C-alpha cells in the first residue's frame, strides 16, 4: 500500500481543483466535495497507519528517482498517527463548518489545499520539499484567516503572512546551509552526513539555528508569537478550530504564554495564548532528549490538538447560541446552556491535565522524563505552568457556574432560553431562518470531549507505537 502515501498528498489537491470546477456549475457543491475528499483522506491515512503497524517504516519514491537524489515520502510510527489526526480533525471541522460556515466554494477549495499541505509536511522525507509544503500550508492558512467578514481578519492575515514568510524563508536559508555542508537534502541522509561533517562545523550550526528559528516563527514561539492571537481571534470559528488544532504544530514559551492568557478577556484570544504556552511545553519535552519525555511530547501534541480544536469549536457554538464572546459574558452560562457549559468545562479541565484526560498523561510523561534526565527545573516549570493554566481555566468555569446571570444579558436572551443545544435548539430558534447551531456542530464538540478523555487511557498504546521510531532517534 505504498501508493496510499502519495495519494494522501495528491488526492486533496485534485479534490481542491474538483471543488472549484464543481462550483462553476453548482452553487453550494463545495461542502459535499470537501466532505467526500475528507472521508477518502481519512481512509488513506488509516490504511497507511495499518501498514506501518504491520510492516514498519514505508517510503514512496516520487517519480521513480532513487533517494537521496530523488524525493521520498515516508510513513513511520510518528508521521502515520499524526496524519490520521490531521484527517480526523479535517473531517470533524467540516462537519462543524456545515452550519457555521463560511459557505463559499472558494473556502472549501482553500481548505482542501491546506489539508494537502499538512499531509505533505508530515509525510515528506526531503527538506526542500518540506519548505514547499510549509508554504502551501501557509498560503492556504493566510487565505482562510482572511475569509472572516471583519476587515480586521485581513490585517491579521497580512501580519501572519509577513511573519510566516520570514519564518519559512529562514527555514529555506537553513536548508541551503545544510545542502552546502553535506550535499544532500534527504532527511535520513542528512542525519548521517551531519555526523560525518561534525556537529560543531559552522555551516551545520548555522543550518540548525536557521531551521529552528524559522520553524519557531511558524509555530509562534514567544517572543515571535504576535501574529497568532490576532489571526485566531479574527478568523471564522471553523478556521480557528482547524488552525489551532493543526497548523501551528510545535511551540512556545511555557510560562510567558500562560501569563498572557491570564490577562486576556476575549475567550478565543485567551485560548490562542494558551496554545502558545502548550506548544512551549511540547518543545521542551523534545529538547530534553529523553525517550520518556518525547512520548509525553507526542501524547500532549495529539491531545492538545483534540482539546484545543474542541474548545474553539465549543466557543463558536456558545457564541452562536448566546452571542457571548468574552469571559465576562460567560457568566451564568451553566444555567442557560447546561450542555454547552458542561462540554466547555470538560475540555478546559482536560487542558489543565486533570486525570484521566489526555492532558494529564502527556504532562505526566514529560515531567517523568525531565526528572529522569536530571532536569528538575523543567519539571518545575511545567508544574508552574499547569497552575497558571488552572488559573485561567478556573476563571471561565467560575463565571459559568457560580456567577449570576447579568440582568441585561438575561433580558436580551433569545427565545431558546430553555434549549440547551442539540436538536431542541434547532426547533426553537427557527423563525424562517436556519438555526445557528446544527446537531453536527454539537456532535463535533461532544466527540472532542470524549476523545480527550478516551485518549488518556490510550497513553501506553501510543508509547508502544512510538517505541521503534524513538529507538531509531535516540539510539537506545
Amino acid at each position, binding site marked *: 500500500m505504498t501508493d496510499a502515501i502519495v495519494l494522501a498528498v495528491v488526492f486533496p489537491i485534485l479534490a481542491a481543483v474538483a471543488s472549484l470546477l464543481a462550483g462553476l456549475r453548482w452553487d453550494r457543491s463545495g461542502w459535499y466535495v470537501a466532505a467526500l475528499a475528507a472521508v477518502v483522506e481519512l481512509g488513506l491515512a488509516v490504511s497507511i497507519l495499518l501498514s506501518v503497524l504491520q510492516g514498519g517504516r514505508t517510503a514512496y519514491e516520487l517519480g521513480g528517482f532513487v533517494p537521496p537524489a530523488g524525493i521520498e515520502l515516508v510513513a513511520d510510527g510518528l508521521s502515520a498517527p499524526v496524519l490520521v489526526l490531521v484527517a480526523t480533525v479535517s473531517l470533524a471541522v467540516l462537519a462543524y463548518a456545515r452550519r457555521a460556515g463560511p459557505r463559499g466554494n472558494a473556502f472549501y477549495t482553500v481548505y482542501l489545499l491546506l489539508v494537502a499541505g499538512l499531509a505533505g509536511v508530515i509525510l515528506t522525507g526531503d527538506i526542500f520539499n518540506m519548505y514547499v509544503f510549509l508554504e502551501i500550508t501557509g498560503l492556504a492558512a493566510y487565505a482562510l484567516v*482572511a475569509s472572516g467578514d471583519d476587515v480586521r481578519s485581513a490585517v491579521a492575515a497580512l501580519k501572519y503572512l509577513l511573519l510566516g514568510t520570514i519564518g519559512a524563508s529562514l527555514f529555506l536559508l537553513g536548508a541551503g546551509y545544510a545542502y552546502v555542508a553535506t550535499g544532500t537534502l534527504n532527511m535520513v541522509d542528512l542525519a548521517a552526513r551531519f555526523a560525518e561533517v561534525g556537529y560543531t562545523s559552522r555551516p551545520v550550526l548555522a543550518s540548525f539555528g536557521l531551521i529552528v528559528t524559522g520553524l519557531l516563527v511558524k509555530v509562534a514561539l514567544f517572543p515571535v508569537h504576535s501574529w497568532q492571537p490576532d489571526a485566531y481571534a479574527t478568523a471564522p470559528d471553523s478556521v480557528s478550530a482547524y488552525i489551532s488544532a493543526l497548523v501551528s504544530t510545535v511551540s512556545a514559551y511555557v510560562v510567558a504564554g500562560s501569563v498572557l492568557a491570564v490577562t486576556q478577556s476575549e475567550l478565543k484570544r485567551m485560548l490562542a495564548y494558551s496554545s502558545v504556552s502548550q506548544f512551549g511545553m511540547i518543545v521542551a519535552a523534545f529538547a530534553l532528549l529523553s525517550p520518556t519525555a518525547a512520548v509525553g511530547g507526542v501524547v500532549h501534541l495529539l491531545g492538545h490538538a483534540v482539546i484545543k480544536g474542541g474548545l474553539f469549536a465549543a466557543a463558536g457554538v456558545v457564541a452562536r447560541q448566546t452571542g457571548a464572546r468574552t469571559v465576562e459574558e460567560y457568566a451564568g452560562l451553566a444555567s442557560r446552556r447546561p450542555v454547552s457549559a458542561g462540554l466547555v468545562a470538560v475540555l478546559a479541565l482536560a487542558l489543565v491535565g486533570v486525570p484521566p484526560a489526555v492532558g494529564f498523561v502527556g504532562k505526566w510523561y514529560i515531567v517523568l522524563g525531565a526528572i529522569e534526565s536530571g532536569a528538575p527545573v523543567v519539571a518545575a516549570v511545567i508544574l508552574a505552568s499547569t497552575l497558571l493554566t488552572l488559573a485561567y481555566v478556573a476563571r471561565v468555569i467560575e463565571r459559568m457556574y457560580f456567577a449570576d446571570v447579568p440582568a441585561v444579558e438575561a433580558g436580551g436572551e433569545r427565545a431558546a432560553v430553555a434549549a440547551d443545544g442539540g436538536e431542541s435548539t434547532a426547533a426553537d430558534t427557527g423563525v424562517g431562518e436556519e438555526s445557528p447551531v446544527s446537531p453536527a456542530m454539537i456532535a463535533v464538540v461532544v466527540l472532542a470531549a470524549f476523545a480527550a478523555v478516551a485518549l488518556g487511557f490510550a497513553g501506553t498504546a501510543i508509547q508502544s507505537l512510538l517505541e521503534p521510531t524513538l529507538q531509531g532517534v535516540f539510539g537506545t
Partner: protein
Amino acid sequence: MSAVVDVLLTRYNYVAVVVLVAAGLYLVIGDRNLVKKVIGMNLFQTGIFLFFITTAVVEGGHPPVIEEGVETYVSPLPHVLILTAIVVGVSLTAVALTLVVRIYSEYGTLRADLIAEMETDD
C-alpha cells in the same frame, strides 16, 4: 583592513546576499507602509535565492545542459530548487497584495500605525 577588501573583492556575491537579506528584513520591520513591507519581504527572499544560486557555481563550469566536449557543469540542483521557490514567492506576493487591496479599500490608508489606531478605536 586588507582582509575586508579581500572579502569584498573575492566574496562580493555573499556580501550582496547579506545586504539584500538585511535590507529586506529592515523594510518588513521598520517601514510603516504595507506595500513597502511586501517589497521588503520580496527583497529578503531574493537574497536567499541568490545565496542558493551562488553556491551552485563551479569554477569554469558550463550551464547544466549536456553538450559534446564539455566536462564540467555547474550544479543544476540549486537552480531547480530556486525555480520552485520563485513560484512560491510569486504566489505569496499575490496573496499579500490582495490583502493589501482589501485593507486599503476598508481603511483608505496603507500606513500600519494609522490602521492600528483605527482598530483600537472600533
